[in-house]
């Protein structure tokens, strides 16, 4: 309501824009936000296995947050590091050439 009043645009338009763009989240994120790239290059190099590995370890699906609020997970369509895929970015820190084996070490860094 506030945004709508201050910018003098219809209430509905605020929601329309907020729900159109993926970068705007309408639900709370975890303390650490994980983005896994599932773009073409990362995909042919095995990002699907990394995504599933993360989903299993954290017990959540994409766009969800762990019960303890530690991690939230999102798949994105390309972060521009296609030569080093599969790519995982946590809180803006990038990890290249990820595989299922390396997940535990990386997740450990984020309490």
């Amino acid at each position, binding site marked *: 309501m506030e945004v709508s009043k201050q910018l003098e645009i*219809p209430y*509905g*338009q605020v*929601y*329309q824009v907020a*729900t159109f763009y993926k970068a705007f989240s309408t639900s709370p994120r975890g303390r650490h936000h994980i983005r896994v790239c599932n773009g073409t290059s990362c995909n042919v190099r095995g990002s699907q296995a990394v995504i599933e590995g993360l989903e299993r370890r954290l017990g959540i699906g994409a766009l969800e947050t762990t019960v303890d609020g530690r991690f939230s997970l999102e798949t994105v369509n390309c972060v521009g590091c296609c030569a080093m895929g599969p790519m995982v970015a946590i809180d803006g820190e990038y990890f290249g050439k990820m595989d299922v084996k390396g997940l535990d070490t990386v997740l450990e860094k984020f309490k």
Partner: protein
Amino acid sequence: MKTIEFEIDEKKVRAREGMTILEAAKQSGVNIPTLCYHENLDHLGCCRICSVYIEKGKRGSIVTACSYPVEEGLKVTTRSQKIDRLRKTIIELAIVGSGPNIKADLYRLSKEYNADLNRFSSIGEETKYNCILCGLCTIKCIEATGGAIGFVGRGVDKKIVSFPETSQTCITCNYCNNVCPTGRISLKGADPPFPTVNDFLSGRS
């Protein structure tokens, strides 16, 4: 205002510069089907059913009549085997989103173009809203009340929802049911009803 001369279905037609093919066709008594078009509103160009074949010199292409401006010497074909097939497919695709229980204009067109209402009925979401997301209702609602309903989401996620905080502004003016091409909105309101924006947001996670 300049006068443009062109052809529709091999018939010579005259129109004012700035008119669209659809407007010129209406004026000359040629019928081109529409769903998302409303004469008092800027064309939305989202249903695509008014697609026609045009030829400019040697080049031909398929364009939507509601948005294409008339041009001198243009040759327009409004019905053909290909166009009819395209319109039939568009209707069958529309039903993926709306579900087969359609009424009003969409139903009439489905009969005219022999569309198979059940061709893709098993595809898409489980709950179907008898809606093709043309948005005419939202535009009219903004005009009347400032917007008790509106679009949210993107792509296959897209829905028309109501905003409970503003729904007291639904004044049952009936602007929306006058323009709905699927018959979802009638004098009795929307059936199926509009989900609220909160239904939409909680459905996402």
